[in-house]
């Protein structure tokens, strides 16, 4: 248990560095950089013309099906991680391999279904 804690001490150090570094840098920039005020500077860039409306609008989510598919496939990969470390040896090799192939096989059915249904085709 303590080994685990120990191995996360460096992680904590790194995390602190990552948290502190950008604000520090920006603080330095604030000290060093010149400042001037002009209204035009603060508009967002839209190819030179005056921006129309906000960018935070609802629009057609073409990626939606990909996102769903990703969530499912990525989660299913989750089951492979623990499996991959134990499938050899431990006296369960044949069962583990057969079961995981069944798992992947079922996954494949879903994959083919998605493909044929056009969920993996870019909507345009």
């Amino acid at each position, binding site marked *: 248990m303590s080994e685990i804690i*120990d*191995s996360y*001490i*460096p*992680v904590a*150090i*790194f*995390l602190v*560095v*990552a*948290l502190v*570094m*950008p604000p520090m*840098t*920006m603080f*330095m*920039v*604030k000290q*060093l*950089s*010149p*400042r*001037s005020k002009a209204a035009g500077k*603060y*508009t*967002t*860039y*839209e190819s030179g013309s005056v921006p129309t409306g*906000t*960018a*935070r609008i609802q629009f057609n989510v*073409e*990626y939606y099906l*990909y*996102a769903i*598919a*990703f969530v499912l*496939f*990525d989660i299913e*990969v989750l089951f*492979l*991680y623990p499996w*991959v*470390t*134990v*499938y*050899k*040896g431990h006296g369960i*090799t044949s069962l583990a*391999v057969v079961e*995981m*192939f069944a798992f*992947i096989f079922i996954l*494949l059915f879903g*994959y083919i279904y998605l*493909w044929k249904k056009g969920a*993996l*085709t*870019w909507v*345009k």
Partner: protein
Amino acid sequence: MTVVIPEYITPLIPWIRGIFGLVLIGIIFVGAMGAVWLERKLSADIQTRMGPCRVGKYGLLQLVADAIKLFTKEDLKPLNADSLLFNNANIFMLGSVFLMLVALPVGAVFINGVEYTLAVTQMDISVLYIEAVSALSIFGIFMVAYGSNNKYSLLGAFRNFARMVGYEVPLGITVISVAAMTGSLNIVDISTAQGLRWNIFLQPLGCFVFFVSLMADMGRLPFDQNESEEELIAGWITEYCGMRFGLGFFAEYIHMILGSFLVALLFLGGWNVPGFIANNSFFGIIAPTGFLIVKVVFVLMVIIGLRWAVPRFRIDQVVDLSWKKLLPLALLNLVWAVGLGLYLGA
């Protein structure tokens, strides 16, 4: 000749590792600068240009000059930007690469024939961990894009998202295929176990899928649809300027270096080289690390070279590539790897 390691060091090892990590951050920053320089020079060579050559010998100090310029640029934040998201996005980008660095071994020393890894921590699941934290940067990208209230940014971020979503899955599956060979998720184990049988030879398909997915994950050309300047100005980074941009840019390059490390460690045998036997001479101690660095630089050069060899894909092509080609290939490779793993034994 044997080297004696004093007893009292043992309890201090976590702290030594932490300090080593901090040093590593510095080194990696310098490395990133080097990578930028390398890219510029290499690109110039490919296009038969000179590249940077004014500041310092071979333009080596160009980056320092750039840094100074960035520090003295005004920090601009567009109107209606969400400052909470906009200001803190860098934390995710940098945090992502720093946290990756924690688990990544950057080399190894052999003392008395025993291998000591040059890594900040020794995790059992370092591959999984690296994959997980490497995905954190997408949050930074999305925060910038949504925070800056720019339509190009938002579109870029969405594209980035669609691409990430597509390539994470084959990436994960190929990593699993590699892990299946050793039965371990510890990157050091994987690297050590390769010996002469580098994974690139055992699983060429896996290596290909992994490399392509990694490129896409890092947003390297030809997979930079999120900032394709012909369509989206600069994509998600349009409103990011000055040092903020600088930090994000840096994070990207560090990400690229770490990605190259991953390729080298997972597929190119890590610090193993055929014919090399560890000894306690000075060369023997630093040589493995050196081999690894050489491999990493080689991978970096391939990545940079590809930028000029392959034109950028359209976003739909990119997504199709991942879902319809790489994913089946990755699954195929997994089956192959499992079979091979069983054949080669535990």
